[in-house]
Structures are given as C-alpha cells and as structure tokens.
C-alpha cells in the first residue's frame, strides 16, 4: 500500500472540512443538543417527587389489637405501688393474663423509650425493670421471640446501654433491634397531613404478631407530656425534628399509624418538670402508678393526671381520640384500680 501523496492528504483534509460537511455536522450536533435539552425539560418535574408510583408507600404499621378480648376482663388496669414488676403482673392479670394477649409462637415487638443515653435513675427512658417484667411474661405466655426497639437517632448503642435496657433485654432473652437504614421504608398515612412518604422503621415489624408499647410518664417541653403516644415518635426516621413545629399533629397521626396490642405506661416515678431529658432528681416525683391498657389514648389520659395537668394542657390526646385512636375519658373503660400492697 502506497503512502498518500501530500496532494491527496490535502484533498482528504479539504473533503472533511468543506463548508457543506461542516454545516451538516453542526446541524446534527445542534439537533442532538436541542433534543437532549428538550428531553431533559420534558422529564423535569417542577413539583418534585410525590409518593412513588412504582413502589407504593406503606399506609401504616399495622393493627395488632386483639379481635376478641377475654370475656369479663377489664380493658385497662391502674395499679398503685412501687415495684414495677409486681405492678405489671397485677395489671395484666386484671386484663385476663398475659396469655390472653400473647399466644404460643408469637413474635412480640416491644417499643420502649430509649431516646437518651442516660441512666435509668434519671427517669428519661423506659425503666429496665419494667422491660424485664414485660419480656419475661411474654416468654412465659409462649412467645417465640421478643424484640425490643426504638430509634433514638443519636448513638442507639449508647442509649440502650446506658439506660440499662440492653442488659435487661439480654437477661430476659429478648433481642434489641437497633435502627439501621435498611429497616426504614416510606410510609404515607391516608388522609395524613404530615406523614406522607416519610421513613418509618417498618422493617422492625417483619414477622411481628404482637406489639407492646412500654413508656415512662414525662413532662415534655414541646408536647406538654411524653407518654404512650409520644413514644411512637421513636419509629420515625429522617430529620424528624421538623415535626416539632406541629407536635400535636404528628402525635395524632402516629396514633393512627399503629394500633398496639397492649400499652404499659409507667408512672411509678414521673418526670414532672424539665422533660423530656430531665437531669435533676428533683425533676422526678414518686407517683406510684402503672397503667396497663389496650387503649393508648386512655392510658395517656391517666398519665396526664399523674403530671398534675388536664387534657387541655396536652392537646394531642383529644385530637387522637377524635381521630379514632382511643378514649380520652378513661373512666368510660371502667378500669380495674388495684394496689400491690393489698
């Protein structure tokens, strides 16, 4: 093969860069750029993403209430005393015993309040003695597994560890489910104003057949009080502090998101001031009361009284009642009032 002459090379070069070819290529390039730009414009969503169409958000965490409670049993027990374990045993017995709620092979999720890495003595978290009592009776009733969870946002290992909940769970044979990204899926509450496509720790509910919410009674700087319903806030992921601007609204929606099997509200010692963190032992008061209830709204209504407040001081309770989550006038449930000292 002979090498092209200088003249041929000039011709080839001239052939590629002649005016017609140049304009043609310029036209192609412009059309391609315009097409790509137009396609981008056509695909641009000015409103931003809404609920995914291809992957539907969950509409709730489930209804775990018993369909037919034990006949003759109370729906709520208010137990006076100082020993959390003994108080819970008395209370659950009045509701028909743990066997009425937990059946052989049940997989039970216990939602605790482990929001802070503070020792149990400061009353900012679910007391480990109460968790031990609840988990122990679950196993005794035949539960195959007891899972304990919360999403404290900040350093969950430290929160579960320092509060004593990790050790209590381990000793009782329960397993802690610490939050991790894979557990969160988007949830949209039908008709919800706030819970739209928001990450919720629904992964912790996989295979779960019963849910027990175990909460302390606390003052709360923003919500007025932190008890059972506020405890459900711990299922939320993301930058959930945005909801503090409408704290009553979000708690009301959380009350609709999950219907627990059982609620245990611990007012043995209540945090009367400077909640939800407290810090001083003088923030605490021995209020000597534990509530075991199938109705979270009714349980919280009792808690409000332990804090020396009224339902007007804690608006989300009435709002949750209006949303159908329970009964604010807890006396309408004819609660069994018991005392462990008698």
């Amino acid at each position, binding site marked *: 093969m002979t090498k092209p002459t200088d003249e041929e090379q000039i011709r*080839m070069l001239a052939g590629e860069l002649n005016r017609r070819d140049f304009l043609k290529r310029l036209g192609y390039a412009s059309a391609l750029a315009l097409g790509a730009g137009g396609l981008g414009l056509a695909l641009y969503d000015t409103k931003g993403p809404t609920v995914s*169409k*291809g992957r539907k958000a969950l509409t709730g965490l489930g209804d775990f209430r018993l369909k037919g409670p034990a006949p003759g049993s109370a729906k709520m027990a208010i137990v006076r005393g100082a020993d959390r374990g003994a108080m819970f045993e008395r209370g659950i017995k009045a509701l028909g015993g743990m066997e009425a709620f937990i059946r052989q092979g049940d997989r039970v999720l216990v939602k605790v309040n482990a929001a802070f890495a503070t020792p149990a003595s*400061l009353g900012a978290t679910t007391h480990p003695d109460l968790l031990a009592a609840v988990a122990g009776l679950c196993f005794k009733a035949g539960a195959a597994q007891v899972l304990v969870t919360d999403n404290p946002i900040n350093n969950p*290992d430290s929160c579960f560890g320092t509060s004593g909940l990790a050790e209590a769970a381990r000793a009782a044979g329960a397993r802690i489910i610490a939050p991790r990204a894979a557990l969160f899926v988007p949830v949209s509450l039908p008709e919800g104003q706030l819970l739209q496509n928001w990450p919720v720790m629904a992964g912790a509910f996989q295979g779960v057949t019963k849910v027990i919410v175990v909460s302390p009674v606390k003052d709360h700087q923003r919500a007025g009080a932190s008890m059972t319903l506020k405890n459900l806030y711990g299922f939320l992921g993301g930058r959930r*502090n945005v909801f503090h601007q409408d704290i009553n609204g979000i708690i009301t929606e959380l009350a609709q998101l999950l219907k627990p099997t059982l609620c245990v509200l611990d007012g043995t010692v209540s945090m009367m001031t400077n909640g939800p963190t407290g810090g001083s032992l003088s923030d605490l008061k021995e209020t000597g009361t534990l509530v075991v209830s199938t109705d979270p709204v009714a349980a919280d209504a009792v808690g409000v009284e332990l804090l020396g407040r009224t339902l007007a001081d804690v608006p989300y309770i009435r709002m949750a009642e209006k949303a159908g989550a329970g009964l604010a006038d807890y006396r309408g449930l004819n609660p069994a009032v018991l005392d462990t000292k008698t």
Partner: protein
Amino acid sequence: MARVKAKVSAAQKLTGYVILAVLGLITAGLLLQQSRFNPAVNAARRAPLLKAAAPATPGGAPAATAAFLPEVEGFTPLGPVESYGPETLSDKIDGKAELYLSAGFKEMSCRSFALGAPGGEHVDVFLYDMDTPPNAYAVFSGQRRPGSPAGSLTAHAYATANALFFTQGRFYVEIVADRASEKLQVSLAAYAEELLAKLPSEGAAKDEAALFPQEGLAPDSVRLSATDAFGLEGLNNVLTGEYDLKDGKATAFIAVRETPEQARAEARRYLEFLAANGYRQVQTPGGPGDMPVLVLDNSFEAVFVEGRTLAGVHDATSPAAALQLAANLRAKLKEKP
C-alpha cells in the same frame, strides 16, 4: 473536485455502537431509578443513625466548646466528646432542643464519665454556647429547679441533690450524676472548677433580680423569656419575677427596649393581644391613669411604660395585688440612673 469521505472501519463502528448501547443502558437505568426516587428514604439514609460523635455543624469544623471540656482526675471518659449544632441538637436532647434554639443556641459539647471504680457514678457534662450572656441566662433561669440552693460557683449557679447548673458568660453548663450523695457533690464541684478555669472570662454577670422590687419577690423566681413571652409571638427578652403580696400573688415583668417609642409600641401590641384573647379593661379608682388594668377569669394584667422599659404585672390574683406590684415596680424603675 470530488469530496473524499473519511473511512470508518468495522471495528470503529462496533466500538461506537457499544458506547452508544452503554450510554443507552445508563440512561434507562437513570430513568428507572428516577421513577423510584424517594426523598424520604434518602432522608433516612442521611440521618446520623449510628454516629458516636459529630462536629457542631454537619461537615463543619469541630465545635469550639469541645476544647473547654477538661479531663479531670477521677473522671474516666466513657466515650469521646460529642458536639451538636442547631441542626443536630434535637438528635441529642429531642424535644428540649426548642428551648435552646429559641434562645439563640450556637453549639453544645458533652461527654460522659464514670467516677471511681467500674460501676461507680455516671456523670454527664453538657456545655452550651448560647452566643450571649442573656441567652445563657434565659436557658438557665427557664429550667431553674425551685427550692434549689444557689451555688457559689458563679453569679448564676445552683445545685440539686445530683447535679450542678450554672452560667459563665455566654455558656450554660449542666453537670449531672445518676445519683445523689454529698461526696459526689464535691467531685462535681471539682469538675466545675476546672471547667470554669478553661472558659473565657466575660466580665461580671448582670444581677437581673436587682431590677425588681424586693418586697414579696420569691427567691430564685426571676426568669428571662427569650421569645414569645406570655404566648405573644415576638414579645422577646422579657424578665419576670414572681411575688407573694398581702393582696395576692402576681408576676412582674420588665422588657427593656432600645427607644421609648419601641417600648410604647410593644405595650400597645400586648394590650391588643390581651383584648383579642378576651381580656377587658376594668375601672381602678385611684389607680394611675396611664396604667390600664385588664381582667379575664380573675386573672389581672397591668401594663405601663417607663422610659424605654415596657413593664407591668401578669396574672395577678386581685386588682389590688396588680396595682400594688405595678406601683412598686414603677418606683423601682424610676430609681434607675
């Protein structure tokens, strides 16, 4: 002259098609992912789920407050110093964050310690930078535990059975143990002294209680509301003091503004706010003409302006208590140079 087209070999063509196919696949993948895009899940993944420590601002420099937390003999750190900024404070203290944020919070560093042998007392130290001394006083006074004795650490300090709380300049400090004992108090005070030695000195603290008439003033009841005092949006930086007087109980309030006009405008706004909430003006024979007294459900309010100070009485249990306290307060304000 005949045009010569550039020759493209089969291999070049194949390479071109492969590149185009890969680009097409990438486009299809992007479109598929875009259709499933979910900001909520992304938000969850961004959330600091398992972090042990963080700078005060995400991605920012380490918090300045971290350097002030001393290592003190006998206090064994249980972990690294943690720091939080306005965006992350609620990760640590949840709903309490609003109290600090509304008062000008800048950053906070904290650390946990064990005292003595393993299983000994657990101590948490929180150091808040509130940007200004009044802001620090606002969060200090707003959380003051009634009946707790004043401490000698600083001008604004008190102790409870298991904890110390104090301000130093723009800093607010909490040193909290998990139990109460006299020996423990000595250790907490030792830590506080070392911390104070590291904090920058910002001059003498203001004595807010001295602004109020002393007759009937409940000890340690003086508080500073940084924002939205008495539920009125924008009524900021209001000092209050609680009184027990012969004619009943009442709360006095003082809010110093930059000019008398500002004070008068704010007084008008507060009176309009009270009226909008159902308060009605009552006649007070013998009372000063420039001091309206309003009532709702046996709760009396009196409002006046003295120079550039908006002042008055809130939630008095009788008109006599309201007028008496308002007169005492006005006399006290006139004493000011």
